[in-house]
């Protein structure tokens, strides 16, 4: 076991990891941050997306030791300082951008990476960017609406269903 230290949501956190410990498992099992979900464990579904040094990555396909020293943001770090939902999270609630909620942490993290790169994405750009995030309830329509709304655009421009 080797000590791994990360800055997680602005705080320095350490724990022991094996070579094979994935960043997703390290966050959940060692640091107790269970907001990051492990869905497929094969880097397809995107439920485990976090930001590492400002970039969206699949934490189930990244070794904790390879991330050592890095700056990680997880879903736990997304809320506003007073604990209220941030703009993207609020938009997911307002537009019912979730059904079972399992994919939601990854959807919010990917949406946040998209809006940092492209503050006013079109519907098609949002759908394209979220290709690596799978919602098995197939609630994509409201997720895309939520991202449009979070970017300050009118979500009603999209067809009803």
């Amino acid at each position, binding site marked *: 076991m*080797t000590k791994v230290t990360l800055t997680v949501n602005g705080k320095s956190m350490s724990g022991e990891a*094996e*070579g*094979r410990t*994935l960043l997703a498992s390290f966050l959940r099992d060692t640091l107790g941050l269970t907001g990051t979900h492990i869905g497929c*464990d*094969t*880097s397809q579904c*995107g439920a485990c*997306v976090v930001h*590492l040094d400002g*970039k*969206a*990555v*699949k934490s189930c*396909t*990244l*070794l904790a*030791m*390879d991330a*050592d020293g890095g700056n990680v943001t997880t879903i736990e770090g997304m809320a506003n300082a007073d604990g209220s939902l941030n703009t993207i999270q609020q938009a997911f609630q307002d537009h019912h951008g979730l059904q079972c909620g399992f994919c939601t942490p990854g959807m919010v993290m*990917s949406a946040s*990476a*998209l809006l940092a790169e492209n503050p006013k994405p079109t519907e098609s750009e949002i759908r394209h*960017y979220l*290709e*690596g*995030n799978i919602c098995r309830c197939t609630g994509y329509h409201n997720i895309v609406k939520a991202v449009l709304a979070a970017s300050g655009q009118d979500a009603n421009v999209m067809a009803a269903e």
Partner: protein
Amino acid sequence: MYNFDFVKPSSVAEAVKALSDDEAQPLSGGQTLLPSMKQRLNAPGTLVSLTGIAELKGVKREGDTLVIGAATLHATVAKEAAAHYPALAELAGQIGDPAVRNRGTIGGSLANNDPSACYPAAVLASGATIVTSNREIAADDYFQGMFTTALEPGEIITAVRFPIPQKAAYAKFVQPASRFALTGAFVAQYADGVRVAITGASEGGVFRWSEGEAALSSNFSADALKGMSGEAEGMIGDLHGTPAYRAHLVGVMTRRAVSAAH
């Protein structure tokens, strides 16, 4: 996955030294290696991470050549190659999904040589040079079949040198579940002729479509390929497409690439 020792050197020389151990394997972005280790298809004793080596990263123009460090991310190539070699940048921006592009590297993709990967098509069609820790390998000698390359054990790719073409484009027929190429064609026009490389189609991995190259070298237009398609023999057949379907796509995707070339 089985456990292993993990080392993260900060120079190519240290990485080569760590890889002299028979049980050691290099790890770049890990977007293929880690899933294959989870399935226990691969079980190295030591993983040597190449992600902490600054000299392996970056996109640099040198005259008519674009030099890309082996550990450069797909997302970085998509952005930084755009002004120099737009077709290559567009190809990089179509690999996997955004999170995969933020980890996966050009060197990792080429060392793995997946028969459906995108980068091998650009490298072969550009007649690029693979620079390794101890030599330079021409693209025509580098790809040696499905998941097989000219790399020796312990040898790592350090950079890829792409001669910049007059015109080029990549046209990819996406396998919708994996976003790998069901068949992809990369066409590049140079002063001395046109090169066409096809990925995703052949059981032998990426290959040059010589009939297409001959037709396009005398007339660079989609019409020059009218009615032409690949040979079904030796093409991949699976639930996504038969060998005959992929052979047909060779012609279709090459025509689309020629029409889109810029």
